[in-house]
């Protein structure tokens, strides 16, 4: 085990996998000398040289597409999007090409491509640089969708992603980069996709949280413990594939559920999870599943407004009490 930040955990796995497999290479804006604007590729240029650590022009469609082509041609590209919001500039290459090619070609193509980058609020970047857009990539079939919430998960899930033979959207969160945690040193440490993490066990209510909300839900759960409310906190870790079993079993046990994420509530992943719970555990539910997510407005620049738009810990607490009719 080594204690390191979420950003460094990512950097280290990239380096280890690049050492292990020379088909792995990284490209993106300002990832070489600069090491990425959040430092996730720092030092890679020095170790692996400019062929495998490539600064790209600001042309997301071209370099995501080049990732698709290089993957089809036998390489294992890792493409960094500086902000996941820029996925919209390359949306066709992700949603119409990467996601569909294997299927459209009748299974005769393999496309091991990792598209990674950060998203979310927390740095005053406003509407075009603060979104959480994972729901879109969950909706369009053909992509695996990963959302690590801790340094260890970032490491274990990224390694799994890098050894997977499918196109993967790997959603980091900008405010998690500096959070620290213990990360296994095992160079084969992997966390399987489709296996949710029961972050904290509990029996009264289930909170399903993603990304930065996992830690915040855990914090709320610990507070509620003091009030005698036992909350189970689950982090799905991957949205595609989704671990229906762990979530549904928990709700069958607790009878109550809250889903919380930073993305917009309307049409967000919470809607899918709440619907799955209703489908699979309707007779166990003692209260409707509550969904927490950003309100239906673009993310504002001002901090007070931003906080008014995305869920707060207070909201999680109230939601848990509400499903408990307290």
């Amino acid at each position, binding site marked *: 085990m080594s204690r390191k930040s979420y950003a460094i955990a990512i950097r280290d796995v990239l380096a280890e996998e690049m050492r292990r497999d020379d088909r792995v290479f990284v490209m993106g804006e300002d990832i070489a000398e600069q090491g990425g604007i959040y430092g996730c590729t720092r030092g890679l240029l020095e170790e692996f040289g400019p*062929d495998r650590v490539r600064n790209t022009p600001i042309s997301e469609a071209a*370099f995501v597409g080049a990732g698709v*082509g290089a993957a089809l041609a036998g390489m294992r590209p890792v493409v960094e999007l500086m902000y996941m919001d820029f996925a919209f500039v390359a949306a066709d290459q992700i949603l119409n090409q990467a996601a569909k090619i294997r299927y459209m070609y009748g299974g005769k193509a393999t496309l091991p491509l990792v598209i990674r980058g950060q998203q979310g609020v927390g740095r005053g970047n406003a509407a075009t640089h603060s979104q959480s857009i994972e729901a879109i990539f969950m909706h369009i079939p053909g992509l695996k969708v990963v959302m690590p919430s801790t340094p260890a998960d970032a490491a274990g899930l990224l390694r799994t992603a890098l050894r997977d033979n499918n196109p993967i959207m790997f959603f980091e969160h900008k405010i998690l980069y500096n959070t620290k945690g213990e990360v296994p040193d095992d160079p084969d440490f992997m966390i399987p996709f489709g296996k949710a993490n029961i972050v904290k066990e509990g029996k009264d209510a289930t909170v399903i949280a993603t990304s930065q909300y996992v830690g915040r839900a855990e914090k709320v759960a610990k507070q509620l413990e003091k009030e005698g409310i036992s909350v189970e906190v689950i982090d799905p870790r991957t949205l595609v594939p989704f671990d229906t079993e762990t979530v549904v079993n928990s709700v069958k046990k607790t009878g109550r559920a809250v889903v919380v994420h930073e993305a917009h509530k309307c049409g967000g992943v919470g809607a899918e999870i709440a619907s799955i719970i209703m489908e699979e555990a309707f007779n166990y539910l003692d209260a409707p599943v509550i969904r927490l997510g950003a309100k239906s407005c673009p993310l504002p620049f001002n901090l007070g407004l931003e906080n008014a738009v995305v869920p707060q810990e207070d909201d999680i607490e109230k939601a848990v009490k509400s499903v408990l009719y307290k």
Partner: protein
Amino acid sequence: MDKERLLWIYRKMQEIRKFEEKALELFEADKLRGSVHLYIGEEAIAATVCSLLKDTDYITSTHRGHGHCIAKGAELAPALAELMGKATGYCQGRGGSMHIADVTKGNLGANAIVGGGIPIAVGGALAAKLRGTDQVAVSFFGDGASNEGTAHESMNLASVWKLPVIFICENNGFGISTPVKQSTSVEDISVRSAAYDMPGYTVDGNDVLAINEVVTKAIERARKGEGPTLIECKTYRWLGHWTGDPQVYRTKEEVDAWKEKCPIKRLRNHLLENKISTEEEIQKIDEEVIAAVEYAEKFALESPEPDPSTAMDYVFYEN
């Protein structure tokens, strides 16, 4: 160019022509559905370019992709079966005409998104460069596609990274009903090569020899690691953009004039006039091609539909 390659080109052009005539016939007989964009009239480009490629070289193609696919080595039977959505098709009925691919032959796929394949070719070339092989990648795209952002981004990227890509713009005068003049700021699209510091050529896209000359240069340049080239081939599609196209945008006279410039007839004449080949030899090829297309038709018609219970297969690679 040696005789063997000339005859290979001739054969491929005929294969494309006869294959597509068959596809059209099947479409009109309601045995084939979907969007089918025919390449008839433009065969010289795919056939000549691919005659210069190895199986290990890559291409990316377009919605009008049968020609590229066949020229890059696809067999007619599974290709036609794919157009019919059969289980024996190249994509097991999942892709159809607009998404046909044969990655084993270096065809990274047709692409129903205009301009969608261009960056993918750049990726194929990048893979070659990273592995240090002398593979090249050819991106075929239309005059219409040349105005998509991906065309620009890809040419710039290939240039700054000195990647072995050959950009082949098939300028057939129209994007669906829209004439080039209405859509494109320059008359010769190849002049855009200067914006990417790469060589650019405009050639008669119905002239096998002319295409051969510039593509040879471009491939040499690419294999030597000197970077990409843009080649515009001026040509014409004889048929509508799709079957049933009312073709309000052009006259019958214009179409007929272009039919006079048939690239297959032209190559045939060249072979005969220069005594490179004989009527008999060419006739034999024609007959073989027709037989192959007939076989393909029989194969495709007799092939089973994919089993609906397998619809979800092939979304993901099972690790």
